[in-house]
C-alpha cells in the first residue's frame, strides 16, 4: 500500500494515472507537450507513416529555438540542413494543427523560457518535451521531464506515456544567499555535491527557506539543471510567488477558473510527514559563487576553491575521469580557476536567459567596458524577454559595455547554429553543460552564474563578482 502521505510529485503523478495494468508501466496523461525542431521531425514522420493525427493539438505547442541563427531574423538561414529542419517543423505544425511560435513569431523563444512566460506551464501539470531541460517547468510544481523522440511520437498520438514512478529525493536549502550568490550557484553546488549521476532514477523536490525566497525565474534556473545530476525532474511546491507570477499571463486561467485553479494548486505541496527516499541539505548561508572546472556539470567548485587533485582518488575509473577532464580543460590539479583568462563569455540558454538574468548581468556591466580580448555574447531567451529588455534599456547597456547582443535562441549553449567556440578556446557560460565540445569542438566551458559571467567579461579572466559589488 502506498503511504497516504504524498509528496508533491506523487500527487501530480496520482492525478494523471490513466490506467494501471499488472506487468506494464503506468499509463499517465500529459497536460502539456512542448515541441521543437530538433527532436520532433522523426516523430511526425512516424505519425504520417501510421496515418495518425495529433490527439490533442490544443495541449501541444511548438517553437523553434535550437537550430536557428541568433543574427538578423530578416535574413534567410544560410545552413541548408538547419533551414530544412526549421521548415519541416513549420510544415509539420501546419499539417497536424499544432500552434507554432516559429522564427517570426512575436513569442518565439527557447522552449523552456517561452512556455512558462506565456502561462502555459501551471502547477500540478504533467509537462513533457523532447529535451532534457524540461525539468525547468518543475519550478511551478509541475511534473516535467524530458523524453526521446519515440515518446514524443507516443504523446503526439495518444497524449499519454508509459512510465514507472521514480524515487523521491528532497533537496533542502535553508538560509539566506549572500550578495553575489544566486540560484545558479545553488544548483551547481547540488550537482557538485551528488555528482553528475547522483540523482539518477529520482525526482527531486527543492525545498527550504532559500528556495522559497527565490523568484520564479530563480526557481526555473534551479529546476532546469536537475538533469545535470541525473534526475528526470525537479519540482518546487507552488506558493504565492508562483500564483503572483502566473496571474494575468496570456494562457493562465482567468476569473472563476483562476480561483478554482488556485484552490487546487494549494492542495499540491508535499504532505507534512511524507517520506522521501533520500534527502540532501545545502546551507545557503555559507554558499559561495560556484564554477565548474571539468567536463561534466558535477565537476564544480566554489569560485575561490581549487580544482581537485586526481592522485588522491582511489577508484581507477573515477581518477581517469578527473585526469581526462583536467587534460581536456588544460588545467593543473590543485590550482584555482579564478584568474584564468577566457576568450568568450556567453550569457544565455534555458538556464539563464530570462529578464532577471539580463538585469543581473546589466547591473554589473553598466557604465563599464568588457575586456577587449573577450567576445561577450548576450542572447535573450525569448522575444518577450527581448521586448522587456528594450523597455528597460538593457541592450544599450550591453552594447555600450562592448557586448554582442543577439536574437533569441539556444545559441552557444548547444552550438548547433554556428554560435560556437573555436578549438581550445575558453568560455565562462551561464548555460547548463560543460561536456567536451558542447559549445563547439575542442571548446572548454566553465559554467557559472550571470553575475560571475559579467564580472569575468569585465576582467578578461575568471572573476569573483563579490570583488566589484
Amino acid at each position, binding site marked *: 500500500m502506498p503511504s497516504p502521505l504524498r509528496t508533491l510529485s506523487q500527487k501530480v503523478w496520482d*492525478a494523471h494515472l*490513466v*490506467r494501471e495494468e499488472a*506487468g*506494464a*508501466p503506468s*499509463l499517465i*496523461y500529459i*497536460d*502539456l507537450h512542448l515541441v521543437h525542431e*530538433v*527532436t520532433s521531425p*522523426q516523430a511526425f514522420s*512516424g505519425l504520417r507513416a*501510421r496515418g495518425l493525427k495529433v490527439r490533442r493539438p*490544443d*495541449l501541444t505547442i511548438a517553437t523553434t529555438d*535550437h537550430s536557428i541563427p541568433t543574427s538578423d531574423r530578416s535574413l534567410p538561414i544560410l*545552413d541548408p*540542413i538547419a533551414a*530544412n*529542419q526549421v521548415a*519541416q517543423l513549420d510544415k509539420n505544425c501546419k499539417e497536424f494543427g499544432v500552434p507554432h511560435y516559429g522564427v517570426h513569431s512575436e513569442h518565439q523563444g527557447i522552449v523552456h523560457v517561452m512556455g512558462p512566460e506565456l502561462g502555459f506551464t*501551471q502547477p500540478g501539470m504533467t509537462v513533457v518535451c*523532447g529535451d*532534457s531541460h*524540461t525539468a525547468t517547468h518543475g519550478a511551478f510544481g509541475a511534473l516535467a521531464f*524530458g523524453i*526521446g*523522440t*519515440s*515518446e514524443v*511520437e*507516443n504523446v503526439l*498520438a*495518444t*497524449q*499519454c506515456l*508509459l512510465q*514507472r514512478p*521514480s524515487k523521491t529525493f528532497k533537496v533542502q536549502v535553508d538560509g539566506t544567499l549572500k550578495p553575489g550568490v544566486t540560484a545558479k550557484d545553488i544548483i551547481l553546488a547540488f550537482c557538485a555535491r551528488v555528482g*553528475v*549521476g547522483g540523482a*539518477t532514477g529520482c525526482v527531486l523536490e527543492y525545498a527550504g527557506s532559500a528556495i522559497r525566497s527565490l523568484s520564479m525565474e530563480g526557481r526555473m534556473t534551479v529546476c532546469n539543471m536537475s*538533469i545535470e545530476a*541525473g534526475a*528526470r525532474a525537479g519540482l518546487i511546491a507552488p506558493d504565492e510567488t508562483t500564483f503572483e507570477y502566473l496571474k494575468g499571463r496570456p494562457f493562465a486561467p482567468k476569473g472563476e477558473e483562476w480561483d*478554482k485553479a488556485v484552490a487546487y494548486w494549494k492542495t499540491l505541496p508535499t504532505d507534512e510527514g511524507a517520506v522521501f527516499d533520500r534527502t540532501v541539505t545545502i546551507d545557503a548561508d555559507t554558499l559561495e559563487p560556484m564554477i565548474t572546472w571539468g567536463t561534466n556539470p558535477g565537476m564544480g567548485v566554489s569560485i575561490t576553491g581549487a580544482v581537485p587533485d586526481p592522485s588522491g582518488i582511489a577508484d581507477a*575509473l*573515477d581518477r581517469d*575521469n578527473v585526469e*581526462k577532464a583536467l587534460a581536456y580543460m588544460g588545467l593543473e590539479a590543485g590550482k584555482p580557476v579564478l584568474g584564468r583568462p577566457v576568450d568568450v563569455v556567453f550569457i544565455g540558454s534555458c538556464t539563464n536567459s530570462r529578464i532577471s538574468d539580463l538585469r543581473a548581468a546589466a547591473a554589473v556591466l553598466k557604465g563599464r567596458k568588457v575586456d577587449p580580448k573577450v567576445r561577450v555574447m548576450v542572447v535573450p531567451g525569448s522575444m518577450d524577454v527581448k521586448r522587456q529588455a528594450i523597455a528597460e534599456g538593457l541592450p544599450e547597456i550591453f552594447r555600450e559595455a562592448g557586448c554582442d547582443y543577439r536574437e533569441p535562441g539556444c545559441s552557444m549553449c548547444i552550438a*548547433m547554429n554556428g554560435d560556437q567556440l573555436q578549438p581550445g578556446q575558453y568560455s565562462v557560460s551561464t548555460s547548463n*553543460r560543460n*561536456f*567536451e*565540445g*558542447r559549445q563547439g*569542438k*575542442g571548446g572548454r566551458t566553465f559554467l557559472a552564474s550571470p553575475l560571475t559571467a559579467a564580472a569575468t567579461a569585465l576582467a578578461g579572466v575568471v572573476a569573483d563578482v563579490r570583488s566589484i559589488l
Partner: protein
Amino acid sequence: MIPFTTFQSRMVPMPLNNIDTDQIIPARFLKTTSKEGLDKNLFCDWRYETDGTPKPDFILNTPRGQGAQILLAGDNFGCGSSREHAPWALTQFGFRAVVSTSFADIFKGNALKNSLIPVVVSPDVHSKMLGLPEDALVTLDLAAQTLALPDGTAVEFAVDSFSKTCLLEGIDELGWILKQTPAIEAFEARRVLSVNTLG
C-alpha cells in the same frame, strides 16, 4: 519491430565513466530530419581529427572496434540530453547492447525502444569483463536475462519486464498504447470536472 534474439559477440571496451550524449553524437549532427546515417558520426570528436582523418588510437578505428555488438562502457553511460539520436547512432553502427555499472534514465528508456539493451552489472563483474581477452565471446540472452561469460559464468541482469516482453515479442509500444484509447477517453471525460485549464 523485429523480435530480439540471443546473440554472441566480442566486446568493445570503452572504460570511461559518464560518457555523455554529446560524445556519443555531437549536437551539430542533430539538424537532420531523418533517423538514418548517424553511425558515421558516432563518437565523432573522439573518432576523427578535425580534418576528418580517423584517429588511429580510438577503439572504433581499430580491428577490435569493428563487427562487435557489445559496448563495454563506464558508469553513468548516456548522461546528458534526451536525444534518441544516441541509440540510433549506436545501433546503426552495429551495437545491440551496452554493458555498464549504470545508465542515465532517459538514455536507458530510449535504448530499450530501439532494441539496444542497457545491461547493468556489478562493479566486480564489470572489472572482470574489462579484464577478459580481446577475442572473448559473450552471449546475451534477453529471455533468461543473462550474460554468459567465456568461463561459463552466467551473469544475471535486470530489465524492465514490459520492455523485455515488447523486445522479445516484437510488440510496438505505440500500438499497445493506442489499444488503451477507451481508457484515455474515459480519463479525458472525467478530467473535464477537475481543473484542466488548457484543455
